[in-house]
Structures are given as structure tokens and as C-alpha cells.
């Protein structure tokens, strides 16, 4: 029974991600006005591809943990770019310096310890997620006095990334467990991801669905 619910939630997540991807693709022609959406669209595409690959590999019981590095690093790059588009000049410099520092640190780490490619890299999880949380808080601050943009996406990023980071911190520990114990935590993770996707859907609805009826 619980497995069934788990599967439903899992496929609902993929379906919702796919719907988001389709909707954002459909609104492609407005992206000139919303540069940040273009980047977020790219993020959705990458997420969708990764999610499908991990699920397929899971079916064949392959170790897919090394994909997590790809996920964290592309997520960091794309979401940093997303905020880079929204921020003012001074804050952009801040993003660029963090960006360079993080990529340097990860690169050096992999050169010194290539072995960690096959497990969760805790340092990587931390330094690729924490700046994103900081960016989203900065964006909240920026939106205080203005007509805020991308507030749903921002809320989604803030909640999902901070909570999922905590889960990934114990990723190595959870990976060693038999499935029955760890499944609860991964279940929570899936629910969080669903909420994340629903918020993105709301963002699309707020920005584009009205525009469509107008034209």
C-alpha cells in the first residue's frame, strides 16, 4: 500500500515536471521579455532529463549516485544565472564571486579525491545549495518595496532547496540502509518536490496565462 502511494507520488512528480516543461515551452515566445524564465526553462529541461535517467537506472538497480554531482552543479549554475538576471549590479558581482569560488573549490576537491564521485559529496551539497538559499533571501529583500517578480519560483527555491539540502546531508547514511527505513525520508523529499513543482506551475499561471487571454 505504502509502495503504491510512493509510486503515485513519484510519477505525479515526473508528470508535473513534464507539464511545467510543456507550459514553459509553449510560452517560449514571451521569453524575450523574461530572460530569467529562459534560464529557468533550461533548468526544468535538465531536471526532467536527470529525473528520467535516474528512474530508469533505478529500475535496473544501477548505482546512479554519481548523477547527483551533475544535478547539484547544474542546479547551482542555472539558478545562479537565474538570480544573476534578477539582481542589481552590486549583487551581481557578489553572485559572480561566489560562482567562481564554488566551482574552484569543487574542481580542486575532485582533483585531490577523485574517489568521492561515487558517493554524496557533502561539501558539494553544502556549497552548491547554501548560496542559492542566500540568493533567494536577497531576492525577497529586493522585492520588499517593488512589485515583486518571480515570487513563486523564489518561494519554491527557498523551501525546497533548504529542506532537500538537509536530506542530502544524510544521503550517504540513508543510502546504506535497507529501503524500508529510508523510504520515509525519501517520501518526504518527493512531497517537497511536488510542492516545488506546484509553486512553479503557479508562477507560470500568474505570468503567462493572463497574457494569453489578452492576445
Amino acid at each position, binding site marked *: 500500500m505504502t509502495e503504491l502511494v510512493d509510486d503515485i507520488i513519484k510519477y505525479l512528480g515526473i508528470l508535473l515536471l513534464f507539464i511545467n516543461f510543456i507550459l514553459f515551452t509553449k510560452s517560449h515566445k514571451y521569453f524575450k521579455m523574461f530572460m530569467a524564465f529562459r534560464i529557468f526553462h533550461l533548468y526544468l529541461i535538465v531536471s526532467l532529463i536527470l529525473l528520467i535517467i535516474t528512474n530508469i537506472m533505478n529500475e535496473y538497480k544501477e548505482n546512479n549516485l554519481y548523477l547527483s554531482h551533475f544535478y547539484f552543479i547544474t542546479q547551482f549554475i542555472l539558478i545562479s544565472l537565474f538570480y544573476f538576471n534578477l539582481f542589481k549590479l552590486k549583487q551581481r558581482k557578489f553572485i559572480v564571486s561566489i560562482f567562481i569560488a564554488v566551482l574552484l573549490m569543487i574542481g580542486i576537491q575532485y582533483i585531490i579525491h577523485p574517489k568521492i564521485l561515487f558517493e554524496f559529496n557533502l561539501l558539494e551539497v553544502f556549497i552548491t545549495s547554501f548560496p542559492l538559499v542566500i540568493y533567494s*533571501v536577497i531576492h*525577497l529583500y529586493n*522585492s*520588499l*518595496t517593488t512589485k*515583486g517578480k518571480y515570487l513563486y519560483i523564489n*518561494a519554491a527555491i*527557498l*523551501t525546497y532547496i*533548504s*529542506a532537500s539540502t*538537509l*536530506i542530502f546531508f*544524510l544521503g550517504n*547514511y540513508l543510502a546504506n*540502509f535497507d529501503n524500508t*527505513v*529510508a523510504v*520515509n*525520508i525519501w517520501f*518526504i523529499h518527493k512531497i*517537497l518536490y511536488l510542492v516545488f513543482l506546484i509553486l512553479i506551475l503557479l508562477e507560470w499561471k500568474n505570468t503567462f496565462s493572463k497574457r494569453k487571454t489578452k492576445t
Partner: protein
Amino acid sequence: MEEHFLETQDQDLVIAALAYGIIFLVLLTTGLLLFFHYSRRKIIQKELEKAALRLEHQKTILQATISTQEEERKRIAQDLHDAISARLNVVSLTANLLLDDDDLNEAQKLSVEHILGITSTTLESSRKIAHDLLPPILDKFGLKVALEELFDDFTKSKQLQIKHSIDDLGFLSKTNELHVFRIVQELINNATRHGDASRMKIKLQKEEGNRFTLTCKDNGNGFDVSKIKKKSGIGLQNIKSRTSILECDLHVESEIDKGSLFTIQSKNNE
């Protein structure tokens, strides 16, 4: 066996801690978002209040300007009448007396006649200026007559046909009557000057509870209403200010090449 049991217990503890940690984080971020949402609402509210205050201030200044302007006009008209017209009348009378004098030769008579001519044209123009500054008819006979006279002036002098139906608005104060008069004057001026209108329809209707509606329709060139909203000229600005002094709403309908319709209606205070 016992070791394994302990291990699972440890695992359960860690999982529970993690679960609470996640819930804690989710609540924390939600709290942050809520805090943001409410602060933002408060800040925007404050900004709106500030903007409203600024607007109110501007409105007061504009109204003060208009009332000062009217007062000045009235004073100048009065002065023209008292100081210049009255004295010119004396000049004209004296010149007439001189003309009757038989001792004057032809050349002198011509000069006096010249003086008389100039005095009477000056008198006429000073009367006209005073009239434009403040129509005395408005003061003496009220809005309805003054408006009808205004329409007649336009119909006579220019290629403009004005159809009108004017109700008597007895409840308006003298200053408010003047505002209505100025609005109509400005609207006609706009229609002829900017709109090249040849026909106008003006209707002033009395309504229940000391309220009224003024509609003014022309067949001129029309304009883009959205542009006017962003930036309006002095004339329209004047109309707006006077409308707000009268506690009325101004509604403008217009399209390029399709004429325009101005509706000014008393606000419903009830």
C-alpha cells in the same frame, strides 16, 4: 542479535531527527515567506498612503491656484471697469461737448472726432477684455443665461454649431457656477482649437439631490484617451481641477477621427 537491534534503534533515532529537522526547516522558510509577504504589504500600504497624501497636496495647490486666478481676474475686470472705462467715458463725454462748440475750426474738429473715435474703440475693447475675464452676465443673470450667451458668441463668430439644452442649476454657489462656466468654455475652446470640430452638443442636466450631469459631445478629430491620461495639457488639467473642486467625476471617451465625449457627473455622496 542485540547489536543489530541497537543499530536499528540508532537508525530510527537519526531518521526521526532528520524528519523533525526537515519539518523545522520547512516551517522556518514558510515563516520567512509569510514575514516577507506581510512586511511587503505593509510597506506598499505606507507608500500608497504617501502617494495619496502627495496627490492631495498637489490638488490643494492646484485648487488654490485656480481660485487665486479667478480672484485676480475678477479684480482686474473690476479695475478695468472702474478705473479705465469710467474715465474714458468722461473723456468721451468731454469730447462730445467740445464738438458742439462753434468756435472750433475744421482741423480742430477733425482732431476731436479722432479722439472720440479712439476713445470709443478703446472703451469697447476694455469692455470686451473685462467681459472675457469675468462675464458680468454670469453674476447678474446666472449660469443658464451666461452659457447661452457664450454659445451664441461662438455660433455667431465661428463655424461652430452648438446644440444645447441647459437646465437651471439654482443650487450652485456663485463660485461653482463660474467653475461650470469655465469648464464649458474650455471644452468649446479645445474642440475648436485642437479638434477642428464643426458641431457640438452640450447638455447640462439637473439631477436629484443637488447633483448635475454635464455632457459635451463634438465631431472633431478626437484623441487617444490613454495618452491624455498620462500627460494632459494645461487646459485639460484645469478642467480636471475644477471638476474635483465641484466634487464631480470626469469621464472622457474619444477615438481618433471619431470626435470626443466628455461627461462630468456629480459624485454620489450617499
